[in-house]
């Protein structure tokens, strides 16, 4: 294969945001077509370089063909869309029914999440997996917050052992996800700032462990908690169903805005300064892939 053909295919591959198996199959299919076309042109008397140049020109821009194929594969079915939004619905339901304080319900939710994530991870990381993966990471973040809020010795443990370990786990999963598609990183991170904010508003650390949450405040905030998770569910369905990448990116930016507005309206005054800083960091991480998408 000439350099011209392999450069063209590399270019297509760069713009194809699929898992490696689908990407390989698509590129291989285009490769055999380019080789056939190139061979035909050589039989007509053209030189190798000229034949490769004409063959790639007939395909058009590598970015355009990759985008069109992405639009086919990037749109999830309605079933996939609802399955992707299901963890958001589930959490909204847990809060709406006050079962989020029930250890059995929480354990069942956690076990179901772990099972779904393991299944999806080994089945080629389909698009519906990423919101589930976000909830899978939630205990990692929440444990860190609880450790920080506990007495002094626990804070040191969090600072020295737990936080570096949690950051490593988060970084590894984010890196793996970004290698597939940077937009999925946002999809994965969406539940983290929401859950983080609500935990800070509803009561953290020793208050939380001792169930010393101010119930009056809780009942005021619950509708907002349910609203924010339902909004995420709707936006996730939208993300899954739209074909164009810029629409997906816009949906993710909307998610960040919804989180910020609902948290600020419901109980912004209860979040300490460090809490706002962490939240800002989360929202920055969530918006960056979408912003990169608009720039590219």
């Amino acid at each position, binding site marked *: 294969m000439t350099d011209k053909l392999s450069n063209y295919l590399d270019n297509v591959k760069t713009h194809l945001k699929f898992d490696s198996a689908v990407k390989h*199959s*698509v590129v*291989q*299919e*285009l490769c*055999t*077509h380019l080789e*056939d*076309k190139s061979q035909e042109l050589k039989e007509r008397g053209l030189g190798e370089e000229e034949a490769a140049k004409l063959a790639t020109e*007939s*395909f*058009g*821009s590598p970015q*355009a*063909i990759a985008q*069109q*194929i992405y*639009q*086919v*594969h990037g749109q999830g079915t309605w079933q996939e869309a609802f399955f992707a939004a299901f963890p958001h619905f589930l959490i909204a339901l847990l809060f709406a029914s006050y079962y989020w304080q029930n250890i059995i319900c929480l354990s069942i939710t956690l076990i179901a999440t772990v099972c779904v994530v393991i299944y999806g991870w080994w089945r080629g990381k389909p698009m519906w997996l990423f919101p589930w993966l976000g909830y899978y990471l939630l205990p990692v973040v929440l444990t860190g917050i609880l450790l920080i809020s506990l007495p002094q010795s626990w804070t040191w443990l969090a600072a020295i052992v737990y936080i570096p370990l949690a950051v490593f786990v988060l970084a590894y999963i984010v890196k793996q996800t970004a290698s597939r598609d940077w937009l999925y990183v946002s999809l994965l991170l969406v539940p983290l700032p929401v859950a983080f904010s609500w935990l800070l508003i509803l009561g953290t650390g020793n208050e939380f462990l001792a169930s010393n949450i101010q119930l009056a405040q809780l009942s005021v905030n619950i509708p907002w908690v349910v609203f924010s998770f339902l909004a995420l569910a709707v936006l996730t369905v939208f993300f899954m169903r739209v074909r164009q990448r810029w629409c997906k990116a816009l949906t993710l930016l909307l998610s960040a805005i919804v989180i910020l507005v609902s948290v600020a309206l419901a109980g912004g005054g209860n979040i300490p300064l460090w809490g706002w800083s962490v939240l800002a960091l989360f929202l920055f991480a969530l918006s960056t892939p979408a912003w990169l998408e608009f720039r590219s």
Partner: protein
Amino acid sequence: MNYERELLKGNTDSLLLWLINCQPTYGYQIIKELEARSNGYFRFKEGTLYPALHRLEKDKLIRGRWQKLPSGQERRYYYMTKKGQRALDKKLATWRDFSTAVRTIIQPETI
């Protein structure tokens, strides 16, 4: 020109399904076959063909399968599915009704 493009766009699926229904085939052969059967009228762009094939496959109207040739080269052949067969029958029936209706209004001898 735009009218021709719109007509082709509206009938791409029928043409592809028809060819695949005739015999399992692959992308390059589809372009050649369309060009030969239409005496050069249909010149499909590869950039149009592959997204269309992948869309039909996603809708389960056709099924793609890698096949190894005696030369060692691998090709992705597309096969018709039962769902695709039903969709093609429906499209052909619609096409027949449409062209009959057009002919009853626009009669070639009066043009």
